[in-house]
């Protein structure tokens, strides 16, 4: 269960104070798929980074498994990001110097993972249909393939929550459908909770619940 309580974040740009996330509160049940739709600049990505522990809120709390992640120190918060949650970003998030396989196992470099992780990485690469590309570098892969590698990486730590920011943003319809099917499959098999941020009302419609974000405020869609 994830509980977001009264989350607020403001930015000051050129002397102008902008409230990007404005007293947002909602709950996510375990294994739920929730989508957040909204226009560019509505605060969706910032909200996702607040929930994922990437940027500190001005006020409010994010309670996951009964713990407020923003009350943790750096080691605790990093450990939480390493073991409990994964991000799928809207841009290519692969490290260019590492192969597809190395990118998938990368989170294991920062945590206490067992050696079997390598077998699981191969399995994930097979799942996203790129088992034969494990030694390819990102520059040798297409945008869709890179996105699928990033998705495989998101599952390497067997997360409880996946925060996906426009996960199919620049992909064709066929690949988008494949990825959504993959998410649903993972959700069903492993009870992974998904919070998807998207422009696409079609993708949002496939979620169990939809939220709308506008001017930093979240409401039911």
């Amino acid at each position, binding site marked *: 269960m994830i509980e977001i309580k009264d989350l607020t974040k403001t930015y000051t740009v050129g002397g102008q104070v902008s409230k990007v996330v404005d007293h947002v509160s909602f709950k996510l049940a375990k294994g739920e798929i929730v989508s957040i739709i909204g226009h560019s600049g509505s605060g969706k990505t910032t909200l996702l*980074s607040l929930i994922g522990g*990437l940027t*500190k809120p001005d006020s409010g709390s994010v309670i996951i498994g009964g713990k407020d992640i923003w009350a943790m120190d*750096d080691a605790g918060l*990093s450990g939480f990001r390493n073991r409990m949650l994964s991000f799928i*970003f809207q841009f290519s998030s692969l*490290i260019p*110097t590492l192969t597809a*396989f190395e990118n998938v*196992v990368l989170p294991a470099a920062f945590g206490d993972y067992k050696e079997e992780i390598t077998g699981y990485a191969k399995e994930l690469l097979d799942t996203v249909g790129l088992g034969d590309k494990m030694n390819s570098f990102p520059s040798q892969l297409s945008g869709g393939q890179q996105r699928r590698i990033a998705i495989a990486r998101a599952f390497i730590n067997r997360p409880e929550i996946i925060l996906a920011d426009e996960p199919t943003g620049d992909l064709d319809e066929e690949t988008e459908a494949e990825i959504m099917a993959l998410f649903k499959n993972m959700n069903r098999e492993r009870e992974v909770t998904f919070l998807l941020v998207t422009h696409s009302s079609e993708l949002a419609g496939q979620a169990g619940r939809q939220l709308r974000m506008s001017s930093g405020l979240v409401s039911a869609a």
Partner: protein
Amino acid sequence: MGKRIRIFSIAVKNLRRKIIRTVLLLLAVTVVTAALFSATLFISSMQNALKIGTYRLGADVLVVPEKYATEARAALLAGEPTSFYMDRAVLEKAKRVEGVKAATPQLFIKPASFTCCYNVDVFLIAFEPETDFTITPWLEKNLKKKLTGNEIIAGRTVPVLVGDSIPFYGTLFNVVGTMEPTGMKFFDQSVFMTMDAAYAMAASSKENAMQPITIERNKISAVLIKVQDGFTPERVAIRLEHDIDGIKAIASEEVINTVRRQLGGLMKGILAISVVLWVLALLMLGFAFYMIVNERQRELGLLRAMGARKGHIFRLIVLEAILISVSGGIAGLIGGSALLLGFKGLIISSFKLPYLLPPVPVLMELVAGAVLFSLMTGLIASLIPATLASSLEPYEAIRKGE
């Protein structure tokens, strides 16, 4: 099946990313380490040679004819062959001077080329076994015997073996021992014989040698003095010069100190240049890593998003810098050694000073010091960039790098 990736591998792969930049940074550390290491090794070799040479000389003061003081110094330090003579009476006078504990004569005989199969100039040094305290203790310790008749001991660089027979001025001498290297040509390129043998060789040279030599039995080249406890060599040297006419008394420490002063000046110069080079290398590395952190902000943010702690990011940046600096340091060690080895002859002949590599433990310390120095260079240079990188807020880092 692939392997797990570790922070070390990430650092290595990052360095390979811009190989030209990595090589340039590595070269900067190589140059600094090579300069510092070769200079330190060079000076330490000279100091080692002086230390061993002084110990081997075993004398606190060397008394020579007044007008040959410069030649005597040159012979001691650079092993430049020379010969000069003074009356043996100087020995008896020296023994009576206050503060003199022991005095022994030596004969320096101009270099003689071997007559047959060798073509190396050697310096002949004759000593008096009865009173000698410089060569005899070594003989007793290492050969367990005294030198008699036509027996000689050869310095390390004289190309002979024990058992060889070598003619000098028409007299055949038997090699009964070779000395360990000292780095001082005065010892290493000399042949030691008794004074009786030297006088006999000179006497028979008129009949046996193509180039005869004349040394009367009442002539000596130098008197080596050991001072009593409570007296300084400098004070005894002054006293000797005061009491005996026509001589120059050289305190061995004075010679060593003169060289040390020369070396000190040289060391200061080298040190100043090295410090400047080091600061430049530090700035270069520091600035390069500042740029690296800036250009990789998004990646660093992504690593944080995957669970890297601040410490992991700090370690990654420092590790990259240390990998460059230690590799540069090792290359510098090899380069510096090669430089010193390649130009050893030229350096020695330019400085006219003794030279002997320090013992293995000291060498190991120098090598370890150079590696530690290069490691510290990387560490110091990367401290600020690594701190900046680790303190980036993940979300900001990812956004700025987009």
